[in-house]
């Protein structure tokens, strides 16, 4: 049998997702699919019906007496800390004296079946003394209701530059939130062990955090709790901090009953109880020259954080870090307000504040263009980061790896942007009802956790004496193919086929103190840690082979399943076996800490990011001026992933991120009533994109010349979050179509999400402004 002499399942190969065959056959196990241990109970939650109220009484006697109920638990049943917050200790597992949002957990029930538990939970009686809720950002700003102090980034002198600028405009955009809408809702299974220990299966991007919070809730040290997750049915940031609540409740009930407890919420409760993307209200004051080049700018970013801090500090910071997006801002002040509201505490969602920051500056680009009568693309080009003198960010980091000028050139050409813009303009003149718009927008996204210490990862690699490999690392698989990419890296390192590398569930007992799989860093960090672990073993094996072959270690030739040392030749399995018999350690932990990064938050200066990921997209839309309905006709994407470890997986991230971003900016609308009740809490009312929302025509490409300037894993770039922001081109194109509908005489105050309603009412307002303006002009004559 002839066989390939070269490894074909290492890096830079489009291998399928490691679980693809199990996904399609229904064999991939999610936590609700794991066979339940005998005696497993099911939890359900008693939640606040008030957005802001003192609890005056809790009566659980009816719930306790309901059929099948084995235990109920409230705050006093927590043996340790009543807290499941990631940073600031301000998220109680069960509310005690005060509820601060509708959906806040107050008690829980454990019963023999899911249905019994859910019915019993409805029988708990909680009485409240209501307080006035703060629901919106405007209400919070008026009431000076903040969860964290404001924060400012500054470079140059923005107010002086503004007063001297030839042109100066102000504006405001409201940017809606977004539910993560992972298809698998929150779930945890707690299984009691001897010594009071607990094993938790949690659908979590952050098993270490779940471990620590469960331990503290139970009054144990972290070594008594083990958390495992094989895969999640989607995370998108929604499972970075939020899983801890469910894990803690399952653990508290498991401790109380001595039986395994599964806590799974249904879709509605999941959406009501858990945090989402932060809403923002962004205002700006910008001064610019005749070419549209920004001379001074001030941004004011107000974010709805909800009732607790959660990750809002870092999220609001990241919004500020991306308020420049791809543009050099010579004199800039960015102020961020972190509003406390009586709504669910907002949390991580793909992009982590970055998208909201970018929407602000991209709107500014469009407004400048409309003001000057320029093509928005020319204004964007004029403002892109450049060489020396135009390469410092508002947080004083030097941009060293900018590829956007090249990327713009290529995309402008392949998408035929200029020609299409001309066509659209003439088409719009002859089309009374339908109007088209087009926009090209860039993405520059900073890669690294801005909380520097989180930029560390670990892995554990075993080589068994038959030559098979067991791979474990701190990253979690929520969908994008992290596991297969890391396995490819290890296969590459050992020069063996990837199917000899067993991918295993993330487990806090194997790799400790891990950071969340977040900030797009999963492959960068865990891939490097795994590579380091594998390299340690390979070095030991090579040294052993050198001894056997009577050569120096450096002379060992390590090829695809063929290792040559002097006259000796081994397959990988043969060398493994020999090394084992030679008492060589065939197991190693790998570790990685991202180099070069630092950030002084007090001074708002530093290098918070190891590098930047870049991309750009062109979208063309058509709107119906009678109804506000619209359709994306075509999208062209060019995205830089460095040297891709797995192009198929990376394309998946680019396309999926784009559509998810498009959902955020177009149809996904979170709607609260005045009392703070979320009324869009299921797919019947909260609409994520469906298949027909994908653009009619599309061209998605990886930037061929991409190569990470920094020494990342195989010179690749992170790809999880950046593509989401490619969808800003859709939002901007809708704005362009609206401007086109008004003869480009006036710019649209379009807010996100741009639902058909938002589009139509924006158009009505534009037309009213136009006719008022015309009236004024007539009066002046």
């Amino acid at each position, binding site marked *: 049998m002839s066989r390939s002499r070269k490894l074909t399942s290492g890096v830079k190969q489009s291998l399928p997702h490691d679980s693809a065959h199990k996904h399609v056959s229904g064999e991939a196990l999610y936590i609700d699919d794991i066979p339940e241990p005998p005696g497993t109970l099911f939890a359900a939650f008693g939640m606040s019906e008030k957005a802001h109220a003192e609890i005056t009484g809790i009566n659980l006697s009816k719930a306790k007496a309901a059929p099948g109920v084995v235990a109920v638990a409230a705050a006093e049943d927590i043996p340790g800390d009543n807290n499941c917050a990631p940073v600031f200790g301000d998220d109680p597992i069960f509310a005690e004296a005060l509820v601060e949002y509708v959906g806040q957990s107050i008690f829980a029930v454990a019963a023999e079946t899911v249905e019994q538990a859910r019915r019993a939970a409805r029988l708990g009686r909680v009485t409240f003394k209501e307080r006035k809720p703060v629901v919106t950002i405007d209400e919070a700003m008026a009431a000076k209701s903040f969860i964290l102090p404001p924060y400012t980034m500054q470079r140059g002198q923005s107010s002086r530059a503004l007063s001297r600028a030839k042109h100066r405009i102000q504006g405001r955009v409201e940017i809606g939130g977004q539910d993560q809408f992972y298809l698998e809702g929150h779930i945890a299974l707690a299984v009691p062990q001897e010594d009071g220990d607990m094993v938790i299966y949690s659908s979590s991007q952050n098993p270490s955090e779940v471990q620590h919070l469960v331990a503290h809730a139970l009054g144990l040290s972290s070594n008594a709790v083990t958390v495992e997750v094989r895969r999640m049915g*989607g995370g998108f940031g929604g499972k970075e901090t939020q899983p801890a609540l469910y894990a803690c409740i399952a653990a508290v009930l498991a401790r109380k009953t001595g039986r395994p407890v599964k806590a799974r919420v249904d879709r509605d409760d999941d959406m009501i109880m858990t945090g989402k993307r932060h809403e923002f209200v962004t205002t700006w004051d910008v001064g610019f020259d005749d070419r549209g080049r920004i001379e001074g700018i001030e941004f004011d970013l107000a974010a709805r954080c909800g009732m607790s801090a959660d990750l809002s500090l870092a999220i609001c910071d990241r919004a500020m870090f991306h308020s420049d997006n791809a543009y050099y801002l010579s004199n800039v002040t960015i102020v961020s307000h972190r509003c406390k509201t009586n709504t669910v505490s907002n949390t991580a969602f793909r992009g982590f504040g970055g998208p909201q920051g970018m929407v602000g500056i991209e709107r500014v680009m469009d407004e400048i263009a409309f003001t000057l009568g320029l093509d928005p693309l020319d204004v964007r080009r004029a403002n892109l980061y450049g060489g020396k003198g135009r390469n410092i960010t508002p947080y004083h980091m030097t941009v060293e790896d900018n590829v956007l000028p090249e990327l713009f050139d290529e995309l402008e050409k392949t998408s035929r942007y200029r020609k299409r813009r001309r066509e659209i303009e003439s088409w719009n003149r002859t089309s009374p009802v339908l109007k088209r718009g087009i926009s090209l927008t860039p993405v520059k996204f900073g890669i690294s956790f801005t909380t520097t210490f989180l930029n560390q990862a670990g892995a554990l690699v075993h080589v068994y004496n038959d030559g098979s490999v067991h791979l474990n690392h701190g990253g979690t698989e929520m969908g994008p193919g992290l596991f297969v990419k890391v396995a490819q890296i290890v296969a590459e390192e050992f020069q063996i086929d990837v199917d000899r590398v067993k991918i295993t569930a993330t487990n806090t007992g194997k790799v400790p103190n891990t950071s969340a799989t977040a900030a797009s860093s999963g492959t960068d960090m865990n891939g490097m840690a795994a590579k380091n672990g594998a390299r340690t073993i390979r070095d030991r094996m090579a040294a052993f082979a050198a001894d056997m072959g009577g050569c120096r270690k450096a002379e060992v030739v390590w090829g695809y399943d063929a290792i040559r040392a002097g006259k000796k030749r081994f397959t990988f399995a043969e060398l493994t076996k020999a090394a084992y018999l030679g008492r060589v350690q065939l197991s190693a932990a790998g570790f990685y800490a991202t180099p070069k990064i630092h950030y002084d938050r007090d001074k708002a200066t530093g290098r918070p990011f190891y590098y930047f990921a870049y991309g750009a997209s062109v979208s063309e839309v058509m709107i119906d001026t009678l109804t506000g309905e619209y359709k994306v006709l075509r999208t062209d994407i060019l995205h830089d992933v460095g040297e891709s470890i797995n192009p198929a997986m990376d394309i998946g991230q680019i396309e999926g991120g784009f559509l998810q971003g498009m959902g955020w900016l177009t149809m996904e609308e979170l709607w609260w009533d005045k009392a703070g009740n979320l009324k869009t809490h299921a797919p019947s009312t909260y609409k994520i994109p469906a298949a027909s929302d994908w653009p009619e025509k599309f061209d998605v490409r990886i930037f061929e010349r991409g190569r990470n300037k920094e020494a990342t894993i195989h010179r690749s770039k992170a790809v999880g979050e950046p593509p989401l922001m490619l969808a800003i081109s859709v939002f901007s194109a809708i704005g362009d179509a609206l401007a086109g509908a008004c003869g480009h005489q006036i710019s649209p105050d379009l807010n996100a999400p741009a639902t*058909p309603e938002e589009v139509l009412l924006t158009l009505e307002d534009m037309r009213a402004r136009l006719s008022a303006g015309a009236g004024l002009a007539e009066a002046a004559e």
Partner: protein
Amino acid sequence: MTSVRFVFGGKVVALDGIDPNMTVLSWLRTKVNKIGTKEGCAEGDCGACTVVLGELTQESGRERIRYRAVNACILFVAALDGKQLIVVEDLRQADGALHPVQQAMVDLHGSQCGFCTPGFVMSLFAMYRSEGQPDRARVNDVIAGNLCRCTGYRPIVDAAMAAYDGGRADQFSRRERQTVELLKSIARTETETLALEGAGRRYFAPVTEDALADLVKAHPEATLVAGGTDVGIWVTKHHQDLETVIHVGGVRDMDFVREVDGSMEIGAATTYTDAVHAIAGQYPDFGELIRRIGSVQIRNAGTIGGNVANGSPIGDSMPGLIALGATLVLRLGKQKRVLPLDQFYPGYRQTALKPGEYLSAIRVPLSQPGRHFHTYKISKRFDQDISAVCGAYCLDIAGGQVTRARVAYGGMAATPARAPQCEGALTGLAWTEDAVPVAMRALAQDFAPMDDMRATARYRLAVAQNLLQRLYLDIEGGAPTVLAPEASGQGMGA
């Protein structure tokens, strides 16, 4: 008959004493450990629970099996009676190889987190077994009821089309004869009403309308279920106990579309899927609207009769039916009466049905020359969404004049309702562009819509009025819309 019998895993399964409120999803996951089928929303909106039902049908004189995708989360187990249930675990071939739709999903990277994947596979499998090579638009429609949050759908659509590359034979086509025999062995005769008791609840599934009429009269308190696409949610979301359920969906002589006295009569047990072609043949716009009601899964289970009888203010069938002047055949015991649909809703979620009475059929006047019918649905998402506003218009125009106008809206009031001021303003008016503002002003007198999560009152009224402009353009030669710009000659150029 007191047990539910269906074909599952190549065998007949008979269940005695099953709780009539148990869903297929719950049964699969908790009773028989088939965990490939997932719960994503428990309300029939995400498709993660999609399974396929095989049903006996006649095709050119031969007994065949018709495969249709449905949502297991809101389908009661009892409704499986007489059918074949196919779940994702059944798709691997005898030698363990993946089914062509599964293999295409793997090859083209159609899964990421994988949680929605079994549902997609089942929707695609139903298509694969039922029809030939689809195009992109057809696939989009087939999977409109399956939500994926990871991929952006592009690779799934590619996989759906590529699955046909190797032909359409699979183990289901090869075993079709055996399955037909199994299904015949459990088909109930006309006199065999299924009568279940389980968990203290009762369930009746008659085969004939006469049996149904007797049952409904005898149990006026019973919940009537056709497709169960709304009633299922009462159980899964609202934790209601339905003590007595009468299943209308299996009544054979209420499953029809036929012409009677200048009307199209649609049996109340006819699914959207089975009715849509006949309706589209009379009124193309109505057909397109029905294509946008729910999803394939919902339309395979749900019925227009259920939509009408349920009485929701935002049901999408009713504005069109009201505008067309549809009438309802209501039956109580052996007594039948006919009521215009626009008199059927006395108030929010109320109907004119008397105790023991039920909706038997819907009669829709046939199209006629000079009669113009259009209906439009406005929602946040184009496919599988609930209307913010649904408008329907039926205008008779003769000699350039509107001689008769019926205008109805959903989403504008507590019930689907006519717009009498607008109708009055249009009637007798010359049909020119000047008629539009007149009708728009009159419409503002008809409704005082409300703000809710689907739309504000301001938008509802504005768009309801603007739809009259679209109506004018449509009647005068095809109004362009963003979804069909090509049809009107306004292509996208690029």
